């Protein structure tokens, strides 16, 4: 019995407004993560959930070095995910509730999960 999957595309300019809308509709943020595919495409997924467990995912295309508005002003806990994405993928967030300035994860290789690093490692 697989759960219903909903992925809604969102752009960086819409993310704050979307987050506020989901907060208004009694959703909460349960996770954010970034992914890089084999074709070097990157996207961030925001997962929201209602108390009745209804779930929705927002999907945003991003690139290394992009600056995205933080949603930690709407969902406080987002700053942890945003610092993680910054440290592992090199996506910047503006206005985070707590900005660790790249020290959230002390990895040996900077932005270790970014596609650019993957290419360099293979060479």
């Amino acid at each position: 019995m697989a759960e219903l999957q909903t992925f809604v595309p969102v752009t960086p300019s819409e993310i704050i407004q979307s987050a506020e809308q989901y907060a208004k509709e009694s959703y909460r943020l349960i996770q954010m993560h970034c992914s890089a595919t084999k074709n070097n495409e990157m996207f961030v997924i925001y997962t929201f959930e209602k108390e009745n467990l209804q779930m929705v995912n927002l999907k945003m295309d991003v690139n290394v070095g992009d600056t995205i508005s933080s949603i930690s002003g709407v969902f406080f806990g987002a700053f942890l995910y945003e610092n993680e994405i910054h440290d592992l993928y090199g996506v910047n967030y503006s206005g985070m509730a707590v900005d660790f300035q790249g020290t959230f994860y002390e990895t040996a290789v900077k932005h270790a999960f970014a596609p650019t690093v993957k290419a360099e490692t293979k060479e």
Partner: protein
Amino acid sequence: MAERTIIPFGPQHPVLPEPLHLDLIMEDEKVVGAVPSIGFVHRGLEKLVEKRDFHEMMYVIERICGICSFIHSQGYCQTIESLMNIQVPDRTRYLRTIWGELSRIHSHMLWLGLMADAFGFESLFMHCWRVREKILDIFEETTGGRVIFSVCKVGGVWKDIDNDTLKRIVNVLKVAEAETKELAGVFFKDYSVQKRTKGVGVLTYKEAFDIGAAGPTLRGSGVPQDMRTLGYAAYGELDFAPVTEKDGDCFARTNVRMREVLQSYDLIYQAVAKIPDGEIDVKVKGFPTGEFVSRLEQPRGQVVYYAKGNGTKYLDRFRVRTPTFANLAPLLKMLPGCDLADVPILALTIDPCISCTER
């Protein structure tokens, strides 16, 4: 206004087996703010999807945590099975439920022991771990392992538990349950337990939900949310309701865990009574394609898995959002207003697993 000082807490601390660091902003003995630091043991396990095929990744994923290793492997397999539209046999669903609930008992008894140790109740700590030992013996008998079991696989499980052994396990659990009930009496009624935990670190219903709390941290504030109610594995066929407490303090979170242990015994009895005979795996053909988000209930709370397949034997991405990661923000909400002496107890009540969190 009192002068503000910053006191470092962790990453090495007697109550924390895990490397969590907090910069505690203090006014005299009161905490007024906290900034967490993790990242001391980041292993980059998710990155290994590029080098391990989707069958091998199960062995990596179950090593994310030594306490909830089985449920990590179950969650990984369920996510991949959903991607590949694989229907596992009914007996497999029940076996996974039984091992999952044994894992919950083992995790909560370990935590209850650590909690007792943290407030100086050494004999209670030892009794909790004595009960837990019976569960580890069951794991060893049924899987061959006490920490890492490697019993789940995409499409089923590697090992069956025969019906005679299941009956014997129930008999062992009846003894463990009676002992757990005695310990529950201590946790619910003992003066020293109440003195250290009641009214400490209160998180309201709304705060807990809005900030993204998970598991007993969420249910201790009265939110009746438990991923098992989604009905994965055999949970849809078992009778249970989320365990909740209203007060939102350390005592409530402790009680939720203790009551969940008792509930887990009952769920295992139900599963053993209903488990059907039959196969324990199906043949897996092809490779995962598409993307899927799944949620399970670990002992520490909701875990979120995301998998993206590309039609080859290697996944593009496998992401794990562990319950401790979700509970770091609630911890920051609970700390302001508490005494410095309460910080270890408070930090412990989210049941922090930083190894899980840093994957």
